[in-house]
């Protein structure tokens, strides 16, 4: 299809321009011959421009997108205008010599098709930029426009007399319409006028409904649409005042032909329509790049040739030089071209590069990439969501797992090497190439950020699972303690009571067995005491009464004076247990390794934190890594999300300070 369409586009554009040039020449000749209203040299040049503008823009777009309807409107429009104006010039020339010239009569008939001047801008107003009406509701309007235009055109084709500068020329057509049909003609004419207004409304509708990008694309054409009614209305007013509207008509037609073409060109090159600006950009970059590389090659080859003389060697050196120059040159030229022709993209990319530098220097957190992207896109609603590598879930910058919101924002995947790193959510209608550039520029930072987010999530998971394990451990200790007291110990007591009852029910003469039963009961009592000690090691039941009570018991069992100053405020059981066991280990350590004469144990509850201090006046020099139970203590504290600090200068005692958070 495009294989046919491209040459056809070329032919149409060439024909239009050629016709325009020919018309200009005919006008210049006509002026020399004294033809009334013939265009002068300047007018002729302007006319060529007004034909060449839509033709060239149409051709330019058609070559890249042959199936797009818009360039064909421009091409056919420019050709039709050129033909009608050419016919007018031919008619003038022919009729100037011979009023009854057949050529003149036919040309005059063709020149009557002046509505073509409006037709293609009108079509553009209705279907720009996607080649379709703004909405299905516009279909009746479209049908009416077609009816009015074709009706007008047909009636003009069969007018009995053509209106020329040389009077009414009879139509050469074998068949003409009777004058009585003139009211119908004016109905069609009114229809055309209404269509012009409708076109302006259609453009406005498209502007209203479009996103920011579409609005920018449509804006210039919309300006033109406002101008046409102004010109039609204003022109007739001026004509009444000044008397002649020829010049105004001419410039009006000029603007009518050039403006839409310029508007389309602006939309295509500046506002990303049909994504052609990117192609242009690439083309420009590679043309300049090629030129510079060739220049580099030539220059180096020349210099190398002068120095070493050998052709093969100098060629190699030049090749290497050109190869080395390729990447930096490409980047430099791309930046230059972007800076000149794609400012928004250039600024966005530069902003993101600066942000990445800040992240590298530690001045910015990679998680803030969303804010940088938002700035780069000038879109406050823009947001970057990270895709976690392990689970594939999405998380925001705070590390909270989220679902992708479905709130009308566009989603763009942020990826690297086919891997999805995250999703950019942004307001619809941003220039796609800008978004693409931003996404590419942000990918490295997003990769960094999502790893950090994942790490943080996993760390939080590890912490909470450790807390759960610690809690389960505490519950288990409590259960074992209960089992020891209420199970085994109860049975032993029962056994003891049975023995005692046997003992007491024995007849007096069975006294020989008495000491044995006493011994048995003593054993049972000892076993109960042992069990009680074991249970207390698992979890001191006195913890039920509070940390202070449990610590007091602990102090009482110590071999050196232990001064306990404990808060009566209660903390969650597992926190109190953790504090107790840390104190227990700290005390055991002190007694075992530090030879203290005095130990102080203090607890305090403040600001949702349970503080524990165990200080001795022993030899000091305890180390966290040493095999002195310190790692165990640290683990116990960490499991509750707390901190443990050890100050143990040699010879100056040891202070172990613990902070345990307790949700209250």
């Amino acid at each position: 299809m495009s294989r046919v369409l491209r040459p056809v586009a070329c032919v149409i554009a060439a024909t239009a321009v050629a016709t325009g040039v020919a018309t200009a020449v005919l006008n210049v000749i006509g002026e020399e011959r004294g033809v009334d209203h013939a265009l002068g040299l300047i007018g002729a040049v302007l006319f060529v421009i007004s034909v060449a503008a839509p033709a060239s823009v149409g051709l330019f777009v058609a070559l890249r997108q042959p199936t797009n309807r818009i360039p064909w409107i421009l091409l056919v429009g420019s050709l039709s205008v050129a033909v009608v104006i050419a016919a007018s010039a031919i008619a003038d020339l022919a009729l100037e010599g011979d009023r009854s010239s057949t050529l003149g009569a036919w040309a005059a008939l063709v020149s009557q098709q002046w509505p073509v001047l409006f037709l293609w801008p009108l079509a553009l107003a209705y279907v720009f930029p996607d080649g379709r009406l703004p909405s299905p509701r516009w279909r009746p309007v479209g049908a009416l426009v077609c009816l009015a235009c074709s009706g007008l055109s047909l009636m003009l084709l069969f007018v009995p007399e053509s209106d020329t500068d040389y009077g009414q020329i009879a139509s050469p057509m074998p068949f003409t319409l009777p004058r009585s049909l003139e009211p119908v003609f004016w109905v069609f004419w009114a229809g055309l006028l209404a269509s012009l207004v409708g076109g302006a409304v259609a453009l406005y509708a498209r502007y209203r409904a479009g996103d920011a990008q579409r609005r920018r694309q449509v804006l210039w054409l919309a300006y033109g649409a406002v101008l046409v009614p102004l010109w039609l209305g204003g022109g007739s007013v001026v004509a009444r005042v000044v008397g002649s509207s020829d010049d105004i008509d001419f410039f009006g037609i000029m603007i009518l032909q050039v403006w839409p073409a310029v508007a389309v060109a602006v939309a295509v090159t500046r506002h990303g329509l049909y994504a052609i600006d990117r192609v242009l950009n690439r083309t420009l970059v590679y043309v300049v790049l090629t030129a510079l590389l060739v220049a580099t090659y030539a220059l180096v080859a020349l210099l190398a040739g002068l120095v070493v003389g050998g052709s093969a060697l100098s060629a190699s050196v030049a090749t290497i030089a050109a190869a080395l120059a390729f990447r930096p040159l490409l980047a430099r030229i791309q930046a230059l071209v972007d800076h000149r022709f794609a400012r928004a993209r250039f600024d966005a990319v530069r902003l993101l590069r600066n942000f990445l530098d800040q992240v590298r220097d530690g001045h910015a957190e990679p998680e803030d990439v969303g804010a940088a992207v938002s700035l780069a896109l000038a879109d406050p609603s823009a947001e970057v969501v990270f895709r976690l590598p392990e689970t594939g879930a999405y998380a925001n910058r705070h590390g909270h797992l989220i679902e992708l919101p479905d709130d009308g924002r566009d989603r763009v995947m942020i990826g690297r090497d086919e891997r999805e790193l995250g999703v950019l959510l942004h307001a619809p209608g941003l220039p796609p190439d800008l978004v693409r550039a931003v996404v590419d520029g942000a990918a490295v930072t997003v990769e960094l950020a999502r790893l950090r987010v994942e790490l943080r999530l996993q760390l939080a998971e590890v912490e909470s699972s450790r807390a759960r394990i610690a809690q389960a451990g505490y519950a288990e200790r409590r259960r074992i303690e209960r089992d020891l007291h209420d199970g085994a110990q109860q049975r032993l007591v029962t056994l003891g009571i049975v023995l005692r009852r046997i003992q007491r029910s024995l007849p007096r003469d069975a006294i020989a067995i008495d000491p044995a039963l006493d011994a048995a009961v003593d054993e049972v009592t000892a076993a109960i005491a042992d069990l009680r000690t074991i249970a207390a090691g698992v979890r001191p039941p006195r913890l039920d009464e509070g940390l202070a009570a449990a610590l007091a018991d602990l102090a009482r069992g110590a071999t050196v004076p232990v001064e306990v100053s404990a808060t009566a405020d209660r903390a969650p059981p597992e926190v109190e247990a953790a504090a107790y066991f840390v104190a227990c280990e700290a005390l055991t350590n002190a007694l075992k390794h530090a030879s203290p004469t005095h130990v102080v144990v203090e607890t305090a509850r403040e600001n949702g934190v349970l503080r524990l201090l165990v200080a001795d006046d022993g030899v000091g020099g305890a180390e966290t890594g040493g095999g002195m139970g310190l790692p165990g203590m640290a683990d116990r504290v960490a499991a509750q999300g707390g901190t443990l600090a050890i100050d143990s200068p040699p010879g100056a005692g040891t202070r172990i300070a613990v902070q345990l958070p307790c949700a209250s």
Partner: protein
Amino acid sequence: MRVVIAEDTVLLREGLAGLLEDAGHEVVGRAGDADALLTLIGEHEPDLAVVDVRMPPDYDDEGTRAAAEIRRTHPSTGVLVLSQHIETRHIVELVTDGGGFGYLLKDRVLDVDDFLDAARRVADGGSALDPQVVATLIGAPGPVRALGELTPREHEVLTLMAEGRTNSGIAKRLWLTEKTVETHVRAILMKLGLTVSDDDHRRVLAVLAYLRAIKG
């Protein structure tokens, strides 16, 4: 005397009942939890309730709480609480609340005579406190300067006093004459700044009130 026993372990409950019946007491009710205990108390109004601390449903301190309830609603019924381990919650309050209350570790039952003695004392409106609980309370942390001034012998006497023993009981225990014990008691109460009284359980109350003061 008429006794109600509350203990959720059946074998232990029967053992205790057997011990008390062997000694000529009448076990009028057996309960497995605090609610049943309170019902039986209301039914029989016994002289003594022997109550396990941990009972269904939560195995926490149902027994102690039931004891407080009994002391409030049936002042004539003494309550002897038995525990598997040392606990001081509510104990001081109950002991200092007018007698008729005792608290013993369960293995203390195996010293049958002591146990029956304590049961008798409590049923008669006296007190009985396990020596280990007393040790815990007396050895409690804090500025117990006055206790530090006691001689070892006085300390021993104070401990037995706190257990609720009479002077003669203390004398028997320590192989002393009653007169010597009286001297020690006077010295102790003086050192603790308490007025001397012959009344058996007032002495305990005094000691425990003091202990509570320094503990709190």
